[in-house]
């Protein structure tokens, strides 16, 4: 495990007491002997307390923080704001359980255990590329639409940005999310097991508008979307999807795309496996049939029984995971914890999320936090009074089609779980030990 151990958010992350002390220690303002005054102060305060804390702790007399007694940093005149230096461990990390032999066709994963709310910050959106990340000048970038059309057209970025635009909230998930942890425990953290998942507001132009503009020939049924990167990554997309809700996206989360997420232009296929949302998009070709490229035969296909493979499994089926507490975290003793997590479905909205605390014998309903949107991450919350005994916790989501998130056993009953297996939407349990250690319990 490369990431340092994370403690549970409600208890120690961002707690003012810990923050002050840690910050003060870094600034060198508090000597470690200040622990002594904590103890003596507690005794005095105890007598005066009228409302007891759940934890039974009594606060020490306050010192004025160093930040209150000094000038802060100056405003950078022309700067881009960055996270606090105390958040330096919250990073998107290269795949480290499945380690590629090179890092040009590689991926990095979102730290969803640290994500608050449903929006992934732009610098943490997971990314997968097949020949490195190109830095493309938007003034030189062009999109061509051709093939079975009345008139092939070329668009510059400024042409595309002259159109009215639309903004939509959607999750994006890689079909390979979870591929390391089907039948045995390989990963420690939820970043490693589920971090090929992100969610933001995507802004761009509907593909259908431009298809109307070029005019489709009769018999047009499939479209090739192709990137301008060194892999010329490409996928065949059925015309129905393109006419329905596919977007040509240039912005996410309020700003232009990041290079690793397709700057200056990418496709976005709501609810579909991430690699169909072709990045650095340069070309759309219209045809009457799919191409069956390496990326849709030898890759991104699902092993099935009898040596078969399932192809064009585009939709990301309903799924959920508990992010807090999750693998690598440490409970701070018995008491109330808010179980938090994400649920999502590539086929609709989330209808409900159930939580088990006993390894799947009984389930109770979690609260879904608004907004609950179509093909978007939904936050669920459940207050748990942990009595300190070992527990096995997991979430199970149901989407608006009525589909119930299955167990790995139910998936393995239909598919062949062998090798590099895509589309893992199985229920994912975490074990909580008596000492409060939280670990991966998939097997």
């Amino acid at each position, binding site marked *: 495990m490369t990431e340092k151990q994370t403690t549970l958010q409600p208890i120690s992350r961002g707690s003012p007491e810990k923050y002050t002390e840690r910050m003060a220690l870094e600034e060198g303002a508090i000597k470690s002997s200040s622990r002594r005054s904590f103890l003596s102060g507690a005794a005095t305060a105890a007598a005066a307390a009228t409302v007891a804390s759940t934890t039974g702790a009594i606060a020490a007399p306050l010192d004025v923080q160093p930040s209150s007694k000094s000038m802060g940093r100056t405003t950078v005149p022309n700067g881009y704001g960055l996270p606090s230096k105390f958040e330096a461990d919250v990073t998107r990390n290269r795949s480290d359980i499945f380690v590629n032999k090179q890092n040009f066709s590689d991926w990095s994963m979102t730290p969803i255990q640290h994500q608050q709310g449903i929006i992934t910050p732009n610098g943490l959106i997971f990314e997968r590329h097949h020949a490195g990340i190109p830095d493309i000048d938007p003034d030189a970038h062009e999109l061509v639409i051709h093939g079975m059309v009345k008139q092939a057209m070329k668009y510059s970025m400024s042409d595309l940005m002259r159109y009215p635009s639309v903004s939509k909230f959607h999750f994006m998930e890689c079909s390979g999310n979870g591929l390391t942890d089907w039948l045995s425990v390989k990963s420690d953290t939820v970043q490693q097991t589920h971090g090929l998942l992100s969610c933001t507001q995507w802004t761009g132009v509907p593909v259908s508008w431009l298809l109307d503009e070029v005019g489709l020939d009769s018999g047009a049924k499939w479209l090739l979307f192709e990137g301008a990167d060194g892999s010329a990554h490409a996928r065949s997309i059925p015309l129905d999807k393109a006419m329905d809700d596919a977007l040509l996206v240039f912005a996410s989360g309020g700003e232009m795309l990041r290079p690793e997420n397709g700057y200056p232009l990418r496709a976005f296929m709501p609810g579909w496996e991430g690699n169909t949302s072709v990045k650095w998009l340069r070309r759309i070709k219209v045809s009457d049939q799919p191409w069956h490229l390496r990326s849709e*035969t030898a890759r991104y296909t699902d092993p099935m029984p009898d040596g078969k493979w399932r192809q064009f499994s585009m939709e990301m089926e309903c799924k959920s995971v508990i992010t807090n507490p999750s693998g690598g975290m440490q409970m701070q003793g018995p008491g109330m914890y808010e179980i938090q997590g994400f649920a999502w479905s590539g086929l609709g909205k989330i209808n409900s999320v159930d939580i088990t605390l006993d390894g799947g014998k009984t389930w109770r309903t979690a609260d879904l936090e608004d907004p609950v949107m179509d093909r978007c991450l939904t936050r669920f919350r459940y207050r748990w009074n942990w009595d300190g005994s070992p527990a096995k916790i997991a979430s199970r989501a149901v989407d608006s089609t009525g589909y119930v998130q299955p167990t790995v056993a139910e998936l393995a009953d239909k598919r062949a779980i062998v090798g590099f297996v895509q589309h893992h939407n199985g229920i994912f349990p975490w074990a909580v030990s008596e000492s409060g250690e939280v670990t991966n319990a998939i097997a």
Partner: protein
Amino acid sequence: MQLHKIALAGGLAVAVSIGGAFASSSKPAVSFGTPISEADVAAWDIDIQTPTGKGLPEGSGTAAQGKELYDVQCIACHGEDAGGGAQYGSMVGGVGSFVTEKRKLTPGSMYPYAPILFDYIKRAMPMTAPQSLSNDEVYALTAYIYALNDLIAEDTVLDAASLAAIEMPNKDGFIVDDRPDAAATRCLENCE
């Protein structure tokens, strides 16, 4: 950035021309594309419709020519005789392995249509200089890798017709998405 200013000016122009009364999700009655001829798209038009071979260009090559190119441009990452190297595993063998616990995916065992290899080498390889090979070179490298996989004879001349005619072992290996497959129920009490 300049683009934002242009986009804003365009938005105003549209609103004015339609008189302000339009649904903001409907297609605007404008066209900002520039017409281009298919001939002028040629340099980008690299895709092959792999089941039919439509799009395969003129040109040809043999395994012997392919080996010469391979040993200079590919061997560092893919190893001798495509047996696996510093950056990628073996590209040879694997036919029959899909019914075992260890499926071995190679162009020979996995690709259902032979032109997939041409399409992929042409668009993405060598990784250090993609789209740098001539069509003759791509045919030659394709012949070399398929010869190593015993799918063609050593002396076969691969061109558009002979490449599309190769019968691939995995041609019937695929089923199209038939999900939902797993049928879970929402049990709440006394579950397994």
